[in-house]
């Protein structure tokens, strides 16, 4: 390791020691511990606010983004050191957001200098919370059939239509949105990528209640919403490219979700806790199901590891995000089902007096969406058949 990097490590360690509040060195216990930022966000504690401000000031909420847009400007190696040092003291991420995971990377790749200047610093400082406007009612996996229209009127677009499955649209400040700017062009031609303020006149949202009891998604309505033409990212009619880029991103995030805890002895340990040390011996068929699952989960975990190692070694096979999304989500659904079996009637609890009652059932129900959102399992299999296997007519 280079001297410069060692110096950086020492400085970083000292800075974190001095600036990370003690309260922010505890593991995240529930969603309410996460800092999502945005105009409507209410900090849970002074420490949470302070930690965000201090990190944002250094650009370390987004360590590898350019300094001129509010990022940290760190090299890959420096960012790795920062991550290691944060892990060393169990420091929480100062900020989580769709802006960081999704829009930021897309803007850095496709946005103009002005757009980057206008929007990226707000993401980096946690001032603006973004949501994603892709799906529309009745479209499902067929994203390219979207109908929300954006008609140019002078130097503004007038947007009309409806989006669905917009995550936390009711808490977001701005939306990045796929709209149809050229109604005459077929399917995914004629689609553009537009940014606008959720506070604009004509925007309204309505939460969707899910079978899990949660409402993380909304329906979002646009009624003659006026958006400056300058808010169109990339070329007009080329929004599909940006969407595809982001979908691949999303797929990787969902595929990897929860997978950390899937492999190894996670489930058998839980079964022992629930059924007693020898409980599984009395339930040979359940034990068999657990073994089969653990083997698949472990094999999948090793495959995630191998894919990363190969990418590092420049040997990547490419187009694996569909595989990870498909297999990872199917595995997680299976895992949640097995956990429900292990817990028996306790798993059926919906609400109760103790903290955590009902969590298992809700997370089981939540998992059923894994293979639907971010491109269904069927769509991922189509993609593998077409792009990887190059099967005809796929």
């Amino acid at each position, binding site marked *: 390791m280079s001297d410069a990097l060692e110096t950086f490590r020492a400085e970083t360690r000292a800075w974190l020691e001095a600036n990370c509040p003690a309260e922010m060195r505890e593991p995240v216990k529930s969603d309410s511990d996460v800092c999502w930022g945005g105009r409507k966000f209410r900090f849970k504690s002074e420490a949470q606010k302070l930690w965000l401000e201090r990190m944002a000031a250094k650009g370390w909420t987004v360590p590898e983004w350019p300094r001129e847009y509010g990022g940290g400007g760190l090299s890959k190696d420096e960012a790795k050191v920062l991550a290691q040092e944060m892990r060393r003291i169990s420091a929480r991420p100062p900020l989580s957001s769709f802006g960081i995971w999704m829009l930021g990377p897309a803007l850095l790749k496709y946005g103009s200098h002005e757009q980057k200047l206008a929007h990226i610093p707000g993401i980096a400082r946690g001032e603006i919370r973004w949501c994603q406007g892709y*799906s529309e009612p*009745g*479209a*499902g*996996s*067929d994203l390219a*059939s979207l109908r929300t229209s954006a008609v140019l009127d002078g130097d503004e677009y007038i947007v009309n239509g409806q989006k*669905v*499955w917009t995550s936390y649209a009711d808490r977001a400040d701005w939306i990045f949105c796929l709209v149809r700017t050229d109604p005459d062009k077929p399917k995914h031609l004629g689609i553009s990528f537009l940014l606008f303020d959720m506070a604009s006149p004509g925007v309204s949202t309505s939460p*969707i*209640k*899910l*079978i899990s*009891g949660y409402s993380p998604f909304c329906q979002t309505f646009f009624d003659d919403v006026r958006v400056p033409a300058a808010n169109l990212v990339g070329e007009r009619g080329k929004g599909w490219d940006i969407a595809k880029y982001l979908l691949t991103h999303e797929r990787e995030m969902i595929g990897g979700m929860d997978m950390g805890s899937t492999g190894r002895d996670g489930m058998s340990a839980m079964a022992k806790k*629930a*059924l007693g040390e020898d*409980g599984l011996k*009395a*339930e*040979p*068929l*359940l034990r*068999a*199901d657990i073994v089969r699952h653990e083997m698949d989960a472990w094999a999948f975990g090793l495959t995630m590891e191998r894919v990363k190692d190969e990418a590092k070694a420049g040997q990547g096979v490419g187009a694996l995000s569909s595989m990870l999304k498909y297999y990872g989500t199917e595995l997680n*659904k299976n895992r949640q*089902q097995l956990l*429900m*079996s*292990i*817990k*028996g*009637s*306790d*798993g*059926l*609890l*919906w*609400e*109760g007096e103790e903290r955590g009652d*009902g969590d298992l*059932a809700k997370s*089981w*129900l939540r998992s*059923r*969406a894994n*293979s*639907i*959102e971010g491109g*269904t*399992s*069927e769509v991922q*299999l189509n993609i593998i058949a077409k792009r990887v296997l190059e099967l005809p007519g796929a």
Partner: protein
Amino acid sequence: MALVLNDEQAMIREAAEGFFADHAPVAELRRLRDAKDATGFDRGLWAKMAEMGFAGVAVPEAYGGAGLGWVAAGLIQEAIGKNLSLSPFLATSVLSAAVLVKGGSEEQKAALLPKLATGELLLALASDERARHAPSHVETRAEPSGNGFRLTGKKAHVLDGHVADRLIVAARTGGEVADKAGITLFLVDPKAAGVRVERRSMVDSRNSASVVLEGVQVDGADVIGEVGGGYALLTAALDAGRACLAAEMLGVSHTSFAMTVDYLKQREQFGVKIGSFQALQHRAAHLFCEVELARSVSLRALQALDDGDVRAPVFVSLAKAKVGEVAKLATNEAVQMHGGIGMTDDFDIGFFMKRARAANETFGDSAFHGDRLARLMNY
């Protein structure tokens, strides 16, 4: 015995299907859930079920019942599954009726069964103590006291326990925990001193309660069957319950599958009906076969109970395990093929998935019954 319904049974099926579709469709479950109804079912519906002869379907005519047996009870429960109707049918008319008919004294039968059949008396079976079904695992103790016993222990997952007028409690009068010998069944008044019943809010909006017994005094006359010989009686009642749960899961599978096939025919994507995608066609065709298999094993199990077939436990475990797997597959596929809309609470399919899961876990899932079947067949 031929694997078909006789004329009487076919009539009961028709009556039951019409009745529940008319009086207790899924919308009714949604209404009760959203209203956070304290009872968890509609007493008016239950009265009508009693009038139809459903409440006492398995009670002999001599005690005011319809005397129609388990195939008939299963057909009613299948219709319940198709409509996700809420009622105390399983707890009262299946589980408790089975215990009393098979093991009750003449006095107990005369006192309880006619009221059960008229719908006046609700009962519940308090046997399970562990979250994963293990029927011989009874820690609740019954210690001799006065002319009876004092009961102390905890029961989990007591179906309809919170509305029952009388509980049937399995307690240990001898043997070690998990021994089959030494278990005795008792009639317990939930209003008696030392009984605490608490309703638990369940994923499928059904009624389940935990019951705590703290030195509850019962009479010698409250013993059902032989002291120490309750396990056989409990098993018989559980097998009736399991066979009826299999029938219910068959109903759940049937409706989920039908909804899915309809959706495949209506929904368009990429410019065509999604039912024209061959991958979905093959999965739907496979599911069709599985539902047909579920229908066969469900009917055989119910028939075997009516016939007093010695292999009845084998057929019951086969049905509970196989139909349980089919119901899981049918509801999973239903949600997946419905896509996003299937995940929303506004749409009904989620209720079916929740019920399939709960019915699976109740009285042993497919792993439990697969293992039981293997043991019964000596391997």
